[in-house]
C-alpha cells in the first residue's frame, strides 16, 4: 500500500470539492449552525447550574451525531459522483491498487468532515464557555469527557460513516439516494443519545464513553472488511449499478 498514491487521489478530490460549492456548503453549514445556535440559546435562557452540567455533555454528544451525518455528503459524492460521471474506469486502469483508491477516497471524505466537526466543536466550546461562565463560575470546556468524545468517538464515528457510505455507494446510482442511505449511519448515535436522555446510559461518565468508543472501533473493523470486499475492481466494473 503506497500512501502517496492515496494522497494524490485525495488531493484531486479536495480540488473538486473546492469547485463544487454545494458540497462545501453542505459540509460546513450544519456544524457551524449548531455550534452558534446552542450557545446563543444558553445565553438567552437562564438554565439552572445543575441542569447545565448535565446538558453541556449532552450537547457535546451532538458532534458524534454530526460525525454520522456530515461525511455522508462527501463520501457519497466522492464515490457515487465518480460512478455517475463514469470516471472510475480510467482511474481503475491506472497503476494503483484497489486498497490505495479506497484509502484515498476514505481520506478525502474523512479529513474535511473531521475538520468541519472539530472546528465547529471548538467554536461551540468557546461560545458555550462565554455563555455559561457567569452561571457556573468556571469554564466548563475543555474537560476529559469532551476530549474522549471529540478525539475518540468523533473520529471513530466519522470513519464508520465513511465506511458505511462506501458500502451504500456500490448499490446506488444517484448521489442524493446515496446521501439519504448514508445518513442512516447516524441512527446508532441517535439511539445512544436517546438512551442517554432516558438515563439508560450516562453520557457524562468517562468509562461509558470509552466503552462506546471501543464498540465503535469494533464496528469500524467489521465494516472495513465489508468495504474491502465491496470495493474491488471487477465488482465495481461489472456489478455496481
Amino acid at each position, binding site marked *: 500500500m503506497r500512501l502517496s498514491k492515496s494522497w494524490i487521489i485525495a488531493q*484531486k478530490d479536495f480540488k473538486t470539492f473546492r469547485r463544487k460549492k454545494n458540497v462545501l456548503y453542505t459540509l460546513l453549514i450544519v456544524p457551524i449552525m449548531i455550534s452558534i445556535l446552542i450557545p446563543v440559546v444558553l445565553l438567552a435562557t437562564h438554565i439552572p447550574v445543575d441542569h447545565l452540567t448535565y446538558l453541556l455533555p449532552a450537547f457535546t454528544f451532538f458532534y458524534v451525531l454530526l460525525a454520522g451525518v456530515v461525511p455522508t455528503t462527501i463520501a457519497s459524492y466522492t464515490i457515487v459522483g465518480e460512478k455517475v460521471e*463514469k470516471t472510475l474506469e480510467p*482511474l481503475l486502469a491506472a497503476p494503483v491498487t484497489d486498497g490505495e483508491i479506497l484509502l484515498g477516497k476514505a481520506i478525502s471524505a474523512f479529513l474535511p468532515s473531521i475538520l468541519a466537526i472539530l472546528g465547529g466543536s471548538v467554536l461551540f466550546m468557546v461560545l458555550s464557555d462565554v455563555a455559561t461562565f457567569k452561571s457556573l463560575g468556571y469554564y466548563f470546556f475543555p474537560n476529559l469527557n469532551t476530549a474522549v468524545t471529540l478525539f475518540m468517538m468523533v473520529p471513530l464515528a466519522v470513519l464508520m460513516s465513511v465506511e458505511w457510505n462506501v458500502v451504500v455507494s456500490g448499490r446506488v446510482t444517484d448521489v442524493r439516494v446515496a446521501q439519504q442511505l448514508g445518513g442512516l449511519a447516524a441512527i446508532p448515535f441517535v439511539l445512544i443519545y436517546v438512551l442517554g436522555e432516558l438515563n439508560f446510559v450516562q453520557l457524562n461518565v468517562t468509562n461509558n464513553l470509552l466503552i462506546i468508543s471501543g464498540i465503535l472501533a469494533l464496528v469500524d473493523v467489521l465494516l472495513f472488511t465489508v468495504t474491502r470486499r465491496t470495493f474491488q475492481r471487477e465488482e465495481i466494473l461489472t456489478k455496481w449499478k
Partner: protein
Amino acid sequence: MIDAENLTKKFGNLTAVDNLTLHVDEGEIFGLLGPNGAGKTTTVRMLCCLISKTEGKASIAGYDVGNEADALKIRKLIGFVPDNVGLYEALSANDNLDFYGKLYDVPDAKRKENIERVLKMLDLWEKKDVMVGTFSKGMKQKLALARALIHDPPVLFLDEPTANLDPEASKTVRDFILELKKQKRTIFLNTHNLDEARRLCDKIGILNTSLRALGSPQELENNVGGRATVIQLEQLTDAVQEALRNLRLDMTIIENRVTIRLANPEKENSAILDAVFRAGGRVQSTAIVGSTLEDAYLKLVRKEAIE
C-alpha cells in the same frame, strides 16, 4: 506485444468472450470489430487487468495479465481510453492530466513537458485551464486521448474512440491515431466503424463472443467476404440458366445479369463461361468484383445470427 490464447470470460452462465486467440505485433494497429454485446469491451478490460479472465492466457509485453504482481506493471505500460471518456468535469484539462501524470509516477518536470506536448498536439493547449465540463464531445475525446498518453505508453487501448463524434472530430481523432502509429505505438482499437477499421488497422479481428475471423482488411475482404464474377448477358435464356444451375454455384440473377460468388474467380471463370457458351448464351461483358470489409463483417455476423 499483445498476446491472447484461448482467453475466456464468463459471468455466471453467460460467456462474454470465448476462446479468443490473437497476437498483435509491436507498432501495429489491431482493430476488434463486432456488434454490441460481442465482448469487445470485456476483452479490453481483461487485457488492461481491469477484470479477471475465467480461462486462457494473455500477456502484454511479456507480462502475464492474470498475475497480480504483473498487473501494476501492465497498467504502467498501457494507455486506456474507455468508451465513456471519464474525465473530471469540475477540473481543468491541465488538472485532469496532472492528476493522471502523478498516478503514473511521471516526474514533475517531465509531467509539465508531457502535458504541454500532448495538449499542443491535440490543439487543446489554449484550453488547458478551462473546466472540462464546458468542452464539446470532440474536445473531451481528444483530452481522453491526451490522458492516455500522459505517461508516454508503448501500448494504447482505445474503446470506440470516435463513437458519437461528428465527422470533423472523428477525422481529427483518426488522424491522431495514425500519428501515434508513426511513433511505433501498439494500438488495440475497438470499433463499430468499418470504414475507420479499414483505414486505420493493419490487422482486424471480428468478434462475436468468439473470434470469427482474423487478418488484414484485404485478407478479410478476399477470404471472408469473397469475390464474385458478374456476367452481363444479351439475353438470359432458360438453357443458360439451366447450364449455370448445373454448376451448383452461389449466384444471384437480376434480369440479364448473373453474379456468381467465387473463392477464386481467375481459376473458375473459364469453366463458367464455357458452360454459358455451350448453352448458346451471348456474353456482353464479364467482370471480377471484390467484396468490402462491410460485406465480410455482415456475412460473419449474419451467419452467426442464422446459426
